[in-house]
């Protein structure tokens, strides 16, 4: 995987001495640097010529995080079964460029790749929440508005995150990635409370749609390495992409994924159909005119997003679930952003409530909740 190299580094005034800034500058000595005012992006008229989203990825802005640190995952939507996931956003936008990425729409008006300079403060705010509720289990991720690890060689956030979460018996951290940037993790002790997970699509989809990500084999090799270093691993077959050879592609994906790691150390596997808002479809068409992701039999669903039509995606889920459960019956499997009806068709039952899903996922990895 090519290391990330911005065209320009912007530093919010007053943040020049933040540890993460100094670390990045030391690694990118010849990239031009500018000091900018607070909320620079909001006050700056960025060019709308060419591909502003791609340009935003090449502009690296270090800025203080002022908004609340912990959010519910934006995937939670009324009518859909949710896994009660919390997210911390330390980075906004991603150095990679998957054709289907929702950030193209979500960050269309503020595409600059932003990195938070006050990670300790953010983690202190997280501690204030999770330590106040020792009886509750939390599952927290950092991969919602960016990839969790792609910038780790540059920023080293895992050195803050892993010890912080390893010290908390009621929280499970998930680092979700399409990269192979795991070197920093290998020297940290996750104390079984960190899951490193990979999003996987079949190798030919990785090559044609997931631009600048790590190749399929490199992701599995990275999974093998972190597992050997004491981490649990997870896999997300999400987005599931329907294309003419999907069955062969996903059969290979599942077989190679399950052969790469120790099955008993897989924390979870999720399945989630490709889902695209109408606006995102328009953006994808413009940015990736030769993409294959729009060519499946997708229809608009209850939440306004386009997915493979229900009967076909249920068939895909059932087929893939069958392969996984045959080889690894003990691994927790869940669906992302699906209705109770689809859960029932795929698994034969519907979770009683969203907390049920969360319990199945966090329960085996965290100590029993403290009474109270």
């Amino acid at each position, binding site marked *: 995987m090519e290391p990330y190299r911005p065209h320009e580094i912007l530093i919010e005034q007053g943040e020049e001495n933040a540890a993460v800034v100094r670390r990045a500058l030391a690694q990118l000595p010849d990239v031009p640097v500018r000091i900018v005012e607070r909320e620079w992006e909001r006050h700056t008229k960025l060019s709308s010529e060419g591909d502003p989203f791609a340009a935003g990825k090449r502009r690296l802005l270090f800025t203080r995080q002022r908004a609340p640190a912990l959010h519910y995952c934006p995937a939670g939507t009324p009518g859909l079964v949710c896994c009660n996931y919390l997210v911390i956003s330390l980075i906004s936008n991603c150095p990679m460029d998957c054709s289907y990425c929702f950030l193209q729409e979500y960050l269309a008006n503020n595409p600059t790749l932003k990195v938070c300079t006050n990670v300790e403060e953010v983690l202190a705010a997280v501690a204030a929440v999770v330590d106040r509720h020792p009886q509750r289990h939390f599952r927290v991720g950092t991969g919602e508005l960016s990839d969790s690890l792609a910038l780790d060689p540059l920023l080293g956030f895992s050195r803050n995150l892993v010890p912080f979460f390893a010290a908390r018996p009621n929280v499970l951290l998930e680092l979700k990635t399409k990269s192979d940037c795991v070197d920093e993790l290998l020297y940290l002790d996750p104390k079984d409370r960190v899951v490193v997970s990979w999003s996987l699509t079949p190798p030919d989809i990785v090559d044609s749609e997931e631009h600048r990500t790590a190749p399929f084999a490199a992701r599995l090799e990275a999974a093998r390495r972190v597992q050997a270093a004491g981490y649990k691993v997870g896999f997300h077959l999400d987005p599931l992409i329907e294309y003419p050879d999907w069955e062969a592609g996903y059969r290979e994906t599942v077989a190679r994924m399950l052969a790469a790691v120790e099955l008993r150390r897989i924390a979870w596997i999720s399945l989630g159909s490709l889902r695209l808002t109408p606006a995102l479809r328009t953006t994808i068409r413009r940015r990736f005119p030769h993409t294959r992701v729009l*060519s499946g039999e997708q229809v608009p669903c209850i939440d306004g997003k386009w997915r493979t*039509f229900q009967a076909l995606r*249920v068939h895909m889920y059932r087929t893939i679930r069958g392969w996984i459960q045959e080889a690894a019956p003990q691994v927790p499997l869940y669906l992302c952003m699906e209705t109770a009806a689809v859960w029932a068709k795929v698994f034969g039952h519907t979770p009683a409530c969203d907390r049920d899903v969360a319990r199945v996922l966090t329960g085996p990895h965290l100590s029993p909740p403290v009474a109270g």
Partner: protein
Amino acid sequence: MTQPDIPCALSERVAAYARERRLSPPTLARWQAWPEEDKAALLVLARELQLNENHLRDFLDWLEEIAVRDRCRVADLLTAPAIQQPLTAHTARSEKLKGVKEALRKIRYPRLSRLEADLRAAVKALDLGRQVRISFPPALEGDAITVTLTARNVRELADCLTRLHQRIEDGRMQKVFDLLDQA
């Protein structure tokens, strides 16, 4: 040799059509970016059907998506019998448009179209009469079917219910539900 001005003339004809039908600049730009033969084939179709912005955008979407998925050329798609048949039928323009769109949708959504056709056939085979209507969720998304009964008196209502009850008892109604789940 004057041959090189042909592509240029084609772009001009496409632009003229866009002016005539007040197409938006992004739609025109998308069309103009196509390979010459594909661009020309769509122009023939657009002229014949007098496609406006919305219809043309649907055609651009579907044709591009099919061409990528099936690794084929738009020009070949548009000259295939499945499209030419409704296009050259001796019917009103609106009928032609409907026929061509239907034919193209079948190519774009082969499994969904097949499932819809199977469901229509299954409902027809139920032979429930005109007073019982069965409808499916849009794009078959969801798992509920809607049954509408129309009755002018209690006897008609009882007839509808009897017929429905029979189809439930003999398992034919179950087949409709089962089909809804099969891709």
